[in-house]
């Protein structure tokens, strides 16, 4: 064993488990995105506790501008909407629903989709069947699917969630498969077989573990898109029913007042924008930090 060999490993050992979140926070953009996400998610979760008003009660102040406008008041920090309901309260409750739709759809669709993809890559015999199924699913636009489901189940957030989950499956299956196929070609898969591992152990400990970080990043990037499509569906009137607050629906309602009370449409849109952007940036940074293959 040469001295040089020993030295290099010790150098590499040092930064090893230096807490990954510390490295994450060292990235300024990631830290900002994460802070924004934590703030938004926290505020949404705590909505019933911190919201200043009842989200369904109207006040006499209709279309009051936000506080930074010269006519704004501190009573309604973000102003009120066309029916005199407090915007801040509606935003807090609306973010809840929007996040719920996005999270459930992405988690369910992402898990099912990537599992399909991994299975297709692992059992090559199944590959053509799984991929044709995915192709079929891919040819259904999410919005059309949402419309069809609303027609069948009736309006509400569940048809939207189901439509979004189904729309997430094919992309995740394709990405999952392509990642898994490249992992399956690695020599360590063969080495794992040579050690005598069962298919189940090989799948779980070798394939899934080596794919998961790349798949997670893709799913987290999908999260932003799904929030957007979900908001779009609500904007089209397919999702949550009034008077439930949902960001996309709020933006839709606000567009009638766009000229004289732009804040009613703009504020929910900005919140959607921030959620999507923060999710994308944070997802990217998480991958950089968590993927052991990118560690140096």
């Amino acid at each position: 064993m040469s001295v040089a060999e020993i030295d290099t490993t010790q150098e590499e050992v040092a930064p090893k488990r230096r807490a990954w979140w510390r490295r994450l926070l060292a990235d300024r953009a990631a830290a900002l995105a994460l802070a924004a996400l934590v703030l938004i998610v926290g505020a949404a979760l705590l909505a019933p506790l911190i919201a200043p008003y009842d989200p369904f009660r109207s006040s006499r102040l209709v279309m009051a501008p936000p506080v930074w406008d010269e006519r704004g008041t501190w009573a309604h920090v973000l102003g009120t909407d066309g029916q005199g309901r407090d915007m801040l309260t509606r935003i807090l409750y609306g973010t809840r629903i929007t996040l719920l739709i996005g999270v459930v759809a992405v988690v369910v669709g992402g898990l099912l989709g990537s599992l399909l993809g991994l299975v297709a890559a692992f059992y090559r015999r199944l590959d053509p069947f799984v991929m044709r199924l995915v192709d079929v699913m891919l040819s259904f636009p999410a919005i059309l699917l949402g419309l069809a489901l609303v027609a069948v189940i009736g309006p509400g957030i569940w048809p939207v969630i189901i439509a979004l989950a189904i729309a997430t499956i094919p992309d995740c299956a394709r990405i999952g498969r392509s990642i898994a196929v490249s992992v399956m070609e690695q020599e360590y898969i063969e080495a794992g077989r040579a050690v005598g591992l069962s298919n189940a152990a090989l799948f779980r400990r070798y394939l899934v573990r080596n794919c998961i970080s790349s798949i997670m990043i893709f799913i987290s990037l999908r999260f932003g898109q799904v929030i957007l499509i979900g908001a779009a569906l609500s904007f089209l009137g397919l999702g949550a029913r009034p008077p439930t607050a949902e960001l996309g629906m709020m933006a839709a309602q606000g567009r009638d007042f766009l000229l004289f009370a732009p804040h009613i449409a703009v504020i929910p849109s900005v919140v959607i924008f921030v959620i999507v952007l923060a999710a994308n940036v944070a997802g990217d940074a998480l991958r950089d930090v968590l993927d052991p293959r990118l560690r140096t």
Partner: protein
Amino acid sequence: MAPDAPLLAVEDLKVHFAVEGRRYRAVDGVSFAVDRGRTLGVVGESGCGKSVTSLAIMRLVSQPPGIYAGGRIVFGGTDLLALPEGRMRALRGGRIGMIFQEPMTSLNPVYTCGDQIVESLRVHSGLSRRAARARAVELLDLVRLPSPAKRADDYPHQLSGGQRQRVMIALALANSPDLLIADEPTTALDVTIQAQILELMKDLQERTGTAILLITHDLGVVAETCDEIVVMYAGTIVERAPTQALFADPQHPYTIGLMAAVPRIDVEAERLATIEGSVPPPWAELRGCRFAGRCPLADERCRREPPPLRPLATGHDVACWYAPIERRAA
């Protein structure tokens, strides 16, 4: 099983690949045997079927496209090709260990080296987590990895190529296998590390009594480590002899060509000798000797009839119509 039966006997093994309607005869009628505690080297250039042979013994040739087209692989008295998958799996990593060519890619990057050895130990011997861990550190020490307890917690990317190959060897030896298959174990390593790894394998063999099947294209490696050598060409064995005999008196024109192509420090030569041409593509339908196209001695008969592998001296078999060559020349 008879006490003098070899540990591993490969008998007329044929492994083909069916790709796009064509049949690639990667291994076409190969026979050899490895005795307990001995080392057999399999040499040949790229594409001659050596790696497929080693994968076939582990039954890791993926089907499709691979086809076990014939022959038997008898290990410890049982034919591996007839074994159900479950029992074959128990042999892999248990009684047969395997070392791969690329130490950089043959360890699972998301688990520590220690965990991978622990995994193999627990799959085969049902040791407790703690006992397996202690044994893993012991094994890493056995392959002379410095500070093995610390290295066990390292991920593969934190180790150098030589260190990873040591971990691979520890992994392959974890369950004290009777047979160790080493597929080009030193090819991806620096020359100095190569020597260390070979020495380590030799040393471990003496201690554990495991038989080694060493697959390589490097004649220097087999010369140093093997008791017996099999030379493969285009999916068949062209010559088989004890190491001493092979180097002293190579008989097949291909073996002679291979040896002439090894640079030697004691012989001045303008340029290295080469063997003209390349290995025939595996889908080629060859009727005669597969080396005929590149052989300086080839005649009509060579192109028409494949030469059988026949004994020349004790333990020295050659598949060439012209052998014994030296005597003919004299």
